[in-house]
Each structure stands twice: as structure tokens, then as C-alpha cells.
């Protein structure tokens, strides 16, 4: 099984991605994360207007196997959540970097991106995790 990585994103060790465009950013979970979780049945999204620091829990994703917390890749204030996931949580499985996005937010400090992995580093990280049997 191969892991897809989006070249426009940066990545956390807890398998979230973030994509920054100007002064806004999008975040979701990675292809590796959705593969590990298998069929996603529900995503509990934060309220618009709420603020979270880097590594704070901002969402819970529930699959037929487990419920997992999702951690903010970088801190920020929630501008919008992906309402489409309410009726179609499977979008996360089908298109984790696109239609399966979780939140649009305004980052507080883009310097926090430095702590994240670039696509090449994450691909290696996720591949190793997969070879170790996933986690």
C-alpha cells in the first residue's frame, strides 16, 4: 500500500497536514491517517471562532475501528469547517488533502511551521511507520 503525500502541505508527527495560502490555512488528516483508521463515519469539528494553540486537540475523527483526536499543526482561529463531512465523512477517505479537509483557519504564528515536516520528510516518516505495522 502506498501513501499519498501532497507537495503543497507540511506535516505533523501525529499525521495532520496544513496548507498555508497567504494569511489563511487549511488542515486535515493525511492519507496515512485515513488508511490506518479505515472507514471514517464521523468527524467532530470545532466551532467557528474558536482558537487553538499548536498541538491542541481541535477535532475528533471516528471510524469503524477507533476514535482519534486531531491536533492543530499550527495554532490559529477557526474561520470555517467542512460542512460536507457531516453527510459524507467518507470524503476524508476518498480525498484527504482535498474535499476531505477539516478546517480553514487564521494562523497566529507562521513561525510554528518550522517544527513541521516537509513532504519528503513526512513521506519517509509515514512509510517507516507503515513498515513498523502502523500505529
Amino acid at each position, binding site marked *: 500500500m502506498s501513501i499519498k503525500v501532497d507537495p503543497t502541505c507540511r506535516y505533523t508527527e501525529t499525521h495532520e497536514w496544513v496548507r498555508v495560502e497567504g494569511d489563511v490555512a487549511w488542515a486535515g488528516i493525511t492519507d496515512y491517517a485515513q488508511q490506518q483508521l479505515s472507514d471514517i463515519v*464521523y468527524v*467532530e469539528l470545532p*466551532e467557528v471562532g474558536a482558537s487553538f494553540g499548536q498541538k491542541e486537540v481541535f477535532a*475528533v475523527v*471516528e*471510524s*469503524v*475501528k*477507533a*476514535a482519534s*483526536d486531531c491536533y492543530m499543526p499550527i495554532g490559529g482561529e477557526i474561520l470555517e469547517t467542512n460542512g460536507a463531512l457531516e453527510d459524507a465523512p467518507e470524503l476524508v477517505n476518498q480525498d484527504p488533502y482535498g474535499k476531505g479537509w477539516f478546517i480553514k483557519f487564521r494562523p497566529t504564528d507562521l513561525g510554528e511551521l518550522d517544527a513541521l515536516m516537509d513532504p519528503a520528510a513526512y513521506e519517509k516518516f509515514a512509510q517507516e511507520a507503515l513498515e513498523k505495522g502502523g500505529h
Partner: protein
Amino acid sequence: MTYVLNTERERREMLRRIGVEKVEDLFQDVPAEHRFPDLELPPPVSEVEILQELRFLSEQNADLDHYLCFLGAGAYRHYIPSVVDHILSRSEFYTAYTPYQPEISQGTLQAIFEYQTMICELTGMEVSNASHYDGATAMAEAVIMALNVARLKRKKVVLAPSIHPEYREVVRTYTQGMNLTIVGDEDPRGDLAALKGLVDGETACLIVQVPDFFGRIPSLAVLRELADAVHGAGGLFVVSVDPISLGLLTPPGEYGADIVTGEGQALGAPLNFGGPYLGFFACREEYVRRMAGRLVGQTVDAEGRRGFVLTLSTREQHIRREKATSNICTNQGLVALGAAVYLATLGKHGLRRVAELCYHRAHYAAQRIAALPGYSLLDDQPFFKEFVVRCPRPAREINEDLLDLGIIGGFEVGNVCPGLDDCLMFCVTEVNSRDEIDELVEALEEVGS
């Protein structure tokens, strides 16, 4: 049949493996003087003798076969069609637990699905779970759900003072340690409309009981105002109902309820000396993800045939675990099944007829008692099947005298409302005939002076 099937040889092998000589050695942590106490039991008697003894003991009870009963206050006697017990006793159904495996439990799952459907129709809600322990715990679960709908950011709960006092206690027990502010019920005879003033942006929910603990039916206008007030503040409106009353009264869904809970014992379960009872719980669909307990859903199997499964059962135990909003997974499967059979047997018109009979008989009783010298009704509001009577003597003494006359009297209101020691709350349902009511009235007249 021996429950643990092992032989003497296997037992010896197990003891040898764990390094003890005999089974008694396993109890050495129990202090010696308590280890194998002499139970001082009377000598054994025959089955005939023990049945005689137990019958003698049971006949000391003031049971409902030999006494008239006008006691309610949360536990109600209604006629139970014999088909209810007949179906409950079938071995296919006779388990109190929710079945996990749809492959072998289609009958029970379908029955729970039908129960949920009927609870939704009765309450005017969109989804119902497969039930909770009783009316009090169902209300406490509603509070926890409302807190979670508000993402635990609201810490205030407004309780109507006229909610069953035990329910209010259970709500406090369930939520202790959550740092909630629970207000509104300081004076059990306080005004319902005044609750509006307590609702604010911190309020997770406002709860009322309809008919209230004292049997009174609040006006629809007041209920709608309360619903609007709590919705305006961003909280939920929770209503606890007597399901039988919904044969006559407007379903809470029509006056703004977001969650409807209640005690379902009246639907086909006997008084049972206090349990097992049945908590029903229904809500609007948008909150279903925060609902505790189980939910049976209808689906199709691989060949496209209709079937039933536990739709949200996995949330607490298998999937969400510590992230679940409630860890209550059990339900009252058998009592819920009884409620489904009861409702299906009565049908829409039958339930309405039962409610009408309760209403008319209770009003006949209230009218006659109020006409007795020294007795008067405490409230002048509309009521359903219960009403509070001010008595010419302390309520406890009246009840004792009634018991001597073979009548279980009303609920002594002074037990929950200081200052109302001369008040009895009577409950009259369709099982109390006109003759029984006349007998009560006569007795009250006799013991009143």
C-alpha cells in the same frame, strides 16, 4: 447442573499449579474470625413448609390485590393487558439485555426499533434511544447531553421546581464533580414562569416536567415562553413527561422541546416494588451524535432484505471509549419491549381512552373530596391524574387511618415540601373504579374529623 464443570482431578491440578494445598487456602486474606463463620441457620425444612412460611410473610404486605390504592408520585398503576406478559415471557425475548448480534436477534431488534418509533410518535421527537434505567436517570442523561451539545462551555442547568424531587436529586448525583450551577428548584412550590429570568448565556438547558410532580398541567403559553427563552440564550429545552398523559396532551416536540425524557413504567410494567422501571429518551435528530445509550436502526442485508442492527451501539464501548459523552450502554430491554407491546396493543385510540379515563376519574375524585368538610384542593390549575388535597388533619394520620380501612392513601406532600404536612396528593387512574373512589371519599369523610 454444576455451574463450574471441573473434576476433582482438574481441581487438584489447578491448586498444584498455583501452589496451594486446598481451596480454603485461597481465603487466607480474610481475617480468620470472619473466614468461615457459623451461619446458625435454622434446621432445613421441606418445600411445603418453606412455601407456607414465605406465603405467610408475603401476606403481611399491603398488596394491591387486597387494598385500594391512590398513591402515585412517579410510579403508576395502569391496567396491563395480559398479552404484554405473555409476549415478555416468551423465551425468544426473555433477556433484559440488548442483543449485540443482528444475525441471531432480529426479533428483539425489531421490537426495540418499534419501541423507539412509538416513543418518537408519542413525544414528537425525531430519534429515541433503546431506553435508560428509569425516568430519573434519563433526565440526568439529558443534562449531560445538553452540556456536551454546548461543548462543556456552559455550566448552568435550570430545573423547574415542580420536577419530581428524586429526579432532581439524581441529576445532582450524576453531575457531581462537574462544577455545575443548578438553579431554579429552591422552592418546590415556586412559579414556573419565573424560570425565564434564570436563563442566560451560561445555561446549557432548562428542564420542566409535564404534568408536573403535583399533577398540574402548565399552560402551553408558559411552556412555549420557556422554550423561547432558553433557545434565545442558545440552550436546550428538556421536557420530562408522563407517557400516558400524551394520549391527551400536546407532544412536547410541538412546544419546543429538544429532548424529551420520562418514566415509562406506566406503559405496561407493574409497580414491581420500585423496579425495574424504564427511562425513555428522545431528541431532535441534530443531537443524535451526543445521545447516550443504544439506538436500533433499520437497514438492508446483503440481499436487500429489511433488517435491524444496533446503529450507534459501538460508540461508547468499542470506538469512543473515554471520548464518549456517557458510558451508559445498558438499557431496559425487556421493560422497553413491554412498553412496545403495551402501546401496540392499545393503539392510538386506546391510549387516548386510557388518558381520558384517568383524567375524568381523577377529576371526579377531586371534585367529591373537595366537597367534603375540611378538605380543599391546594391548586386551581388544570391537572391530569394527580391532585393535592389539603386535609383537616396531618396527612400522616389520615393515611394511617385510611390504611386501617384497607386503603393506601395519597403521597404525603410534607415529605418534600416543608409546611405542607396537611397535604395529600392522590393519584387516580383508569383502574380506580367509581365505586373505589366513592369508598375513598367516604373513608376520608370518616377519618377527617
